[in-house]
């Protein structure tokens, strides 16, 4: 069978599976819709969290980004895994004991204030919408590249699928489809990685192949060869990178703390039965995530070596077949500037003849490694699984924020459970449509706003929740002032450098050399300082709030 047929078959089977799970998981109460009845097995929750967390960007783009950033790409690897340590140790068990439905629930109750709740709702909705637009776009791109369907039609198909299991099954439907999606995406990621590792280093374990010698007979270590190839072409050595130490430090911290503060990840820990389960399921989640995240840098190094070794300085007429295939998609462009018929790849923009989209490093891997056609179909299904699972988790946060936090808890508290569930479903359906629209007509700033989502989560939720648990005397004045200060600082820095004066966006103009990607760390520190300072000079929280804090610190209820 050809690649297209295989892709249709594999993607079709996975979609049928997701819809089947949705029908099976139909829910009838808000408790099931918001948190799956708090009845999810911790191992299943670990898998669901991993799929929820790993987005189209992790699956499709990350290895490619690392391939072009070298050592600097470590910010993603450490940032997006280290956050789980913070989540497991500082937030998840206590939020589980608190045991409501959402992050704004906690912020609102702990700080006995509907203002605090509203600040949290606005942040949660903004962060989630930013993120979800990128996911729907990812769905459209995978469809258009592998199945020759337009981006618009691709997004619509994605919307229909998500609509099914998010609107019908709520959190319960999402959880079990995410478990299935994790299995699909990790299999789709590891199979090509293992083959390409064997091809380049002879070692079937990518993590070990990464540190092995190459099979070209030179006996050189892969990374030494890659450093040599990179410097020859005028790039920085692969293992050294070019960002400043302070910037690497701050970006890593912003991504870690942002991860721990993302509402769609936090809410997953409300779905397990006990505090004990929340702890262990964070551990399972990280194992499942590290399986992909420790493979990604190896894939990056293999693909980069292959690219530099086989494509650079080759006659255009003699490059392998996949080169032409991917030229057709526009992800690779060759422009023979010096008209010698050879492909010249160089750090010097004056003479460089090859433009490469980082996404190609994962998407074209099966063809580069000459794998059977079904593997290409598998990679398409994996990319879709990664995008859909994350989109569903985000949609649920948005619809819950509207139905539960905004309407039930604030504006119209008298509605029945049935009515609330109906509103939640309508909100989920509406959100799917808006997300789809954003995927088809992406606002020009989707790419930059990912930094925004993490920066805001780091500067708002993380300090507010952590202080709420670890500092009994933190009051509503302090928490609100801290969140507002953190958000304003982070947002204005990012808005200034990405929208108002993008021409000034370089290390020379950054405050202390910290890029907009890393400013969330500064926002977080400012949030902590402002919150602590304001709380010192304002009324201490009421006695029942101190009791609440004492209660969430201990697993046993009563």
């Amino acid at each position: 069978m050809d690649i297209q047929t295989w892709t249709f078959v594999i993607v079709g089977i996975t979609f049928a599976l997701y819809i089947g799970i949705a029908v099976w998981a139909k829910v009838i109460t808000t408790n099931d819709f918001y948190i799956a009845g708090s009845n999810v097995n911790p191992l299943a929750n670990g898998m669901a969290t991993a799929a929820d967390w790993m987005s189209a960007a992790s699956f499709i783009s990350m290895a490619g980004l690392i391939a072009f950033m070298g050592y600097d790409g470590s910010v993603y690897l450490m940032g997006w895994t280290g956050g789980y340590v913070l989540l497991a140790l500082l937030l998840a068990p206590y939020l589980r004991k608190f045991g409501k439905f959402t992050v704004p629930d906690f912020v609102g109750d702990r700080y006995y204030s509907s203002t605090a709740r509203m600040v949290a709702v606005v942040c949660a909705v903004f962060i989630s919408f930013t993120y979800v637009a990128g996911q729907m776009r990812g769905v459209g791109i995978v469809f258009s590249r592998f199945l020759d369907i337009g981006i618009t039609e691709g997004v619509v198909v994605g919307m229909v699928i998500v609509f099914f299991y998010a609107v019908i099954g709520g959190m319960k439907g999402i959880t079990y489809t995410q478990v299935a999606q994790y299995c699909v995406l990790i299999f789709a990621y590891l199979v090509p990685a293992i083959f390409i590792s064997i091809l380049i280093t002879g070692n079937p374990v990518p993590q070990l192949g990464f540190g092995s010698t190459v099979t070209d007979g030179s006996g050189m270590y892969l990374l030494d060869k890659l450093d040599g190839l990179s410097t020859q072409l005028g790039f920085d050595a692969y293992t050294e990178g070019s960002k400043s130490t302070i910037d690497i430090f701050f970006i890593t911290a912003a991504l870690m703390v942002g991860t721990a503060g993302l509402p769609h990840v936090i809410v997953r820990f409300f779905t397990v039965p006990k505090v004990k389960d929340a702890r262990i399921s964070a551990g399972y989640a990280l194992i499942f995530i590290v399986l992909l995240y420790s493979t990604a840098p190896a894939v990056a190094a293999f693909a980069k070596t292959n690219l530099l070794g086989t494509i650079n300085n080759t006659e255009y007429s003699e490059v392998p077949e996949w080169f032409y295939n991917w030229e057709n998609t526009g992800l690779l462009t060759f422009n023979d500037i010096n008209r010698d018929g050879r492909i010249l790849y160089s750090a010097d923009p004056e003479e460089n003849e090859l433009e490469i989209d980082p996404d190609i490093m994962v998407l074209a891997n099966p063809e580069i490694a000459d794998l059977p056609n079904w593997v290409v179909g598998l990679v398409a299904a994996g990319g879709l699984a990664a995008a859909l699972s994350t989109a569903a988790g985000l949609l649920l946060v948005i619809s819950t924020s509207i139905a539960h936090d905004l309407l039930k808890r604030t504006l119209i508290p008298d509605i029945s459970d049935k009515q609330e569930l109906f509103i939640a479903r309508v909100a989920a359906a509406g959100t799917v449509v808006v997300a789809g629209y954003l995927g088809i007509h992406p606002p020009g700033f989707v790419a930059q706003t990912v930094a925004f989502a993490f920066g805001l989560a780091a500067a708002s939720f993380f300090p507010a929740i952590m202080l709420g648990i670890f500092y009994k005397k933190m009051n509503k004045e302090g928490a609100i002032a801290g969140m507002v200060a953190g958000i304003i600082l982070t947002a204005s820095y990012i808005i200034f450098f990405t929208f108002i004066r993008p021409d000034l966006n370089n290390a020379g103009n950054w405050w202390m050399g910290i890029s907009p990607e890393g400013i969330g760390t500064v926002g977080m520190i400012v949030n902590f300082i402002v919150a602590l300072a304001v709380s010192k000079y304002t009324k201490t929280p009421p006695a029942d709030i101190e009791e609440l804090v004492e209660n969430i610190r201990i697993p046993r209820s009563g």
Partner: protein
Amino acid sequence: MENKAKLYWRKNLQLLAVLLGIWFTVSYGFGILLVDQLDKITFFGFGLGFWFAQQGSQYVFVVLIFIYVFKMNKLDKEFEFDEI
């Protein structure tokens, strides 16, 4: 009851301090601040600093969470704060 809860909380904070100290050391320490010094040491085909940044820190993170789970479950039982 009051004192028991306080002692439990203090023990929890001590454990957190140790684990987060290791968390900081392997990522921000070995992977970022000391990366150039550690890269002089070869670990299989890697510079040691680069290995911590792209591989080792992740493995340590996983181990840290499981140590936390094990120790906290034990602490809960010891103080009879475990869920029934």
